């Protein structure tokens, strides 16, 4: 992935997390090894695409404990349900990719899709670790994995 695009993704995702979810992200230069994420199950995936002159999709993979923490911060309550956690994960994807698209598509010609999220009981990051458009962030509550696929 182009270094400029990676930098933009890192900056935009971090901004969304800090502003709306009071969570600070540290982009990781090197992909973490399995010892660092092996115990993080299940995961939640939130996906969103866009189409028009630019076409692409993003997939956000959150350890459940991270998605739960974001939801608690977002709603200001400890009592959160799984449906709210899934909804918050989808909203993260919506905000981050919507913000990115605002920068990449200043003419507003692209259409942002509707985000979808799902609980992945058997997923491990080993499935995406070789993706070329992978960005990984340390959050303090596990790693956030973001996969960008262009076209």
């Amino acid at each position, binding site marked *: 992935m182009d270094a400029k695009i990676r930098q933009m993704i890192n900056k935009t995702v971090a*901004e969304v997390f800090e502003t709306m979810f009071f969570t600070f992200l540290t982009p990781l230069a090197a992909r973490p090894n399995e010892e660092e994420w092996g115990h993080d199950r299940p995961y939640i995936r939130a996906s969103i695409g866009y189409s028009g002159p630019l076409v692409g999709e993003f997939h956000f993979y959150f350890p459940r404990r991270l998605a739960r923490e974001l939801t608690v911060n977002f709603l200001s309550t400890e009592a959160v349900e799984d*449906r709210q956690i899934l909804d918050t994960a989808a909203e993260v994807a919506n905000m981050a990719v919507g913000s990115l698209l605002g920068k990449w598509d200043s003419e507003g010609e692209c259409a942002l899709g509707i985000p979808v999220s799902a609980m992945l009981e058997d997923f491990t990051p080993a499935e995406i670790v070789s993706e070329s458009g992978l960005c990984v962030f340390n959050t303090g509550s596990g790693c956030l994995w973001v996969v960008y696929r262009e076209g």
Partner: protein
Amino acid sequence: MAFNILIADDSTTMRAVVKKTVEMAGVPVNEFYEAANGREALDILADSWIDVILSDINMPVMGGMELLRAVRSNKDYMNIPLVFITTESSEARMSEAKKYGVSGYIKKPFVPETIKSILYEVLEKAYDSKIDASHASEREENMDF
């Protein structure tokens, strides 16, 4: 005066956060109404008195831009302020929204202060214009005599 506020967003958590933020901002609220898309928002408008609409753009079934056009083309709702709270921030999209008569634009991610300042500005402006409109109708009634 306390306001009836309609929040249109397909995310239930986002609706909850917007509600909480509006309350924190100290806006006097009579009642909140919630819709998951533009169609549901129009159904609520048909049945309830709404003072201001806070809407996302990107929603299934009926998006915010369609909702804005429907509101502005209906004589019963056309003066209700409508504010977009959305991730869609391109200049072109904002110009389109202005063309159709959006009252304000709040970009996600937002801080509570942004909602507060824009909502107050929009409500104060709408309140003034409502007074003007009632004066205008009084003048028209007087002219009939």
